[in-house]
C-alpha cells in the first residue's frame, strides 16, 4: 500500500479500511468498563468500553441491550469494528453482556427494579397452569442433564403428556436470541401447547445470565402459553422465573409440579372409587330401610283397616241376627195370620174367626172363642 502514486478518495479509504478490518478481525469480543453510555432517540446506543490505557467507541441498537446498564459496569461486547464515513471508528455491537460478579448483580438489580415497577412480576399477571397439561412445549438444551432429568421425570409420572421440544442454547451470547426464537416458535401455529417450560440446570452467575436478559424476560412475559420456568438450583433466582406464571426450583421440580404421579393418581382414584361405593351402599341401605319402614306402616294400616271392617261386619251381623223374625219364633212367640195378613191387633178379631198360627217349627189352624182387648192409656 506504500505507493505514492495511489491517491484514494475518503470514501475509497473508508471502504478499503472496512474490508481490511473485516478480513483481519471479523467479529471481536472486548471486555472492559462501560463509559459514556447514552441512548439517542430511544433507538441508538452509544458508549465506550475502556480499561486503564484505552477506550473503544461502540455503537448498537437498543435491541442489543440485555437490560439497564450503568456507568462503570464490567461488560463483554461482541461486534464488528467499522469505520463510519462520517463519524469515524466504532465497534458495531451485536451483543452486550454484563460480566463479573459485581456487574451481573448490579445489572440484575437494575432490571429487576425496572420490571417490577412495570408490574411484570405482579401476582395478578400469573395464570394458572392446566393440571395436568395435555401438551407441553419445552425450551432447553437437549444435550443438558436438565433436559434428561425433566423428560425422565415427566414421562415417568405422566406418560400421557405430549412433549414438544425446542432445542436452544441456554448459556453464552447466542442463548438469549435462541431462547427468544424458540419462544416465538412455540407461540405460533394453531396447535399451541398448554404449558411452556423453560429450564436449565445449575451454573455460575455468568452461565445463567441469559435468563436475566431483558429481551428474554419480556418474551416470557408476553408468551400466549402459560409459562413454567426452572433455572439452576433452589437458591438461584432469575428474572425469567420471576416473570413466569409459575416457578420451579429445579428441572426435576418443574416436571413434578407440572403433572401428577400416575401411581398416586391411580391410588387416589381407587380410594375415591371405594368411598363412592361405600356412600352408594350407605344410601342404598338407608333407602331400603326407609322402604321397609314404609311397607310396615302400609301393612299395619291395611291390617287395621281389615280389622275395622271385620268388626263392623260382625256388629252388623249381630244386629241383623237380632232382627231375624225366626229367632223371635224360636223364643216361643207365634205369628197369627188371617186371610188379610199377619194379625197385629186383637181388635181385628171376632169370635169364631178362623186364624192360622205359625210357630218356629210348624203351624196350626185355630178358631177364636173370645176376644179380650187390653185397655191402653
Amino acid at each position: 500500500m506504500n505507493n505514492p502514486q495511489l491517491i484514494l478518495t475518503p470514501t475509497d479509504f473508508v471502504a478499503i479500511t472496512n474490508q481490511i478490518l473485516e478480513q483481519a478481525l471479523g467479529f471481536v469480543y472486548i471486555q472492559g468498563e462501560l463509559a459514556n453510555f447514552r441512548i439517542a432517540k430511544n433507538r441508538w446506543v452509544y458508549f465506550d468500553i475502556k480499561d486503564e490505557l484505552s477506550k473503544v467507541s461502540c455503537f448498537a441498537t437498543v435491541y442489543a441491550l440485555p437490560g439497564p446498564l450503568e456507568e462503570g459496569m464490567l461488560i463483554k461486547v461482541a461486534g464488528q469494528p467499522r469505520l463510519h464515513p462520517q463519524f469515524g471508528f466504532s465497534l458495531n455491537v451485536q451483543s452486550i453482556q454484563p460480566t463479573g460478579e459485581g456487574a451481573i448483580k448490579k445489572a440484575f438489580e437494575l432490571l429487576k427494579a425496572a420490571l417490577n415497577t412495570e408490574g411484570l412480576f405482579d401476582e395478578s399477571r400469573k395464570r394458572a397452569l392446566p393440571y395436568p397439561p395435555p401438551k407441553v412445549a419445552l425450551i432447553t438444551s437437549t444435550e443438558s442433564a436438565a433436559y434428561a432429568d425433566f423428560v425422565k421425570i415427566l414421562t415417568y409420572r405422566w406418560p400421557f403428556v405430549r412433549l414438544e421440544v425446542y432445542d436452544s442454547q441456554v448459556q453464552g451470547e447466542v442463548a438469549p436470541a435462541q431462547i427468544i426464537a424458540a419462544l416465538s416458535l412455540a407461540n405460533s401455529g394453531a396447535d399451541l401447547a398448554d404449558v411452556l417450560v423453560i429450564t436449565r440446570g445449575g451454573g455460575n452467575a455468568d452461565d445463567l445470565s441469559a435468563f436475566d436478559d431483558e429481551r428474554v424476560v419480556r418474551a416470557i412475559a408476553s408468551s400466549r402459553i402459560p409459562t413454567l420456568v426452572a433455572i439452576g438450583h433452589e437458591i438461584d433466582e432469575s428474572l425469567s422465573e420471576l416473570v413466569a406464571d409459575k416457578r420451579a426450583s429445579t428441572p426435576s421440580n418443574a416436571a413434578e409440579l407440572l403433572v401428577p404421579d400416575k401411581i398416586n393418581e391411580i391410588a387416589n382414584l381407587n380410594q375415591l372409587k371405594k368411598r363412592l361405593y361405600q356412600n352408594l351402599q350407605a344410601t342404598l341401605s338407608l333407602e331400603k330401610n326407609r322402604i321397609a319402614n314404609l311397607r310396615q306402616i302400609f301393612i299395619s294400616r291395611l291390617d287395621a283397616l281389615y280389622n275395622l271392617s271385620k268388626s263392623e261386619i260382625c256388629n252388623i251381623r249381630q244386629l241383623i241376627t237380632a232382627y231375624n223374625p225366626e229367632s223371635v219364633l224360636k223364643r216361643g212367640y207365634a205369628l197369627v195370620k188371617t186371610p188379610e195378613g199377619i194379625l197385629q191387633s186383637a181388635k181385628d178379631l171376632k169370635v169364631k174367626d178362623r186364624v192360622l198360627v205359625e210357630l218356629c217349627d210348624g203351624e196350626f189352624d185355630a178358631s177364636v172363642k173370645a176376644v179380650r182387648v187390653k185397655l191402653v192409656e
Partner: protein
Amino acid sequence: MKQIKDIDYQKTKAELDEILVWFERSDVSVDDAFIKYKKAEQLLEQLDAYLNDTKTKIDQIIKKSTKS
C-alpha cells in the same frame, strides 16, 4: 271366588246399611222382614268372603316382607 272378585265392598256394605236402617223403622212388616233378612245374610256372606280373601292377601304381603 267369582263372587268375591265381582263385589264392590263399599257398595255392598251400603246396601247392608240400608237394610239395617229399614229394620230400625217402626212400621216393618214381618213378611218383608224375612225377605230383607235373607238378603242381609247373603250380603254378609259376600262381605265375609271378601274380607277373608283380603286377610289372605295381607298375610301373604307380611310373609313376603318378613322374608325380604
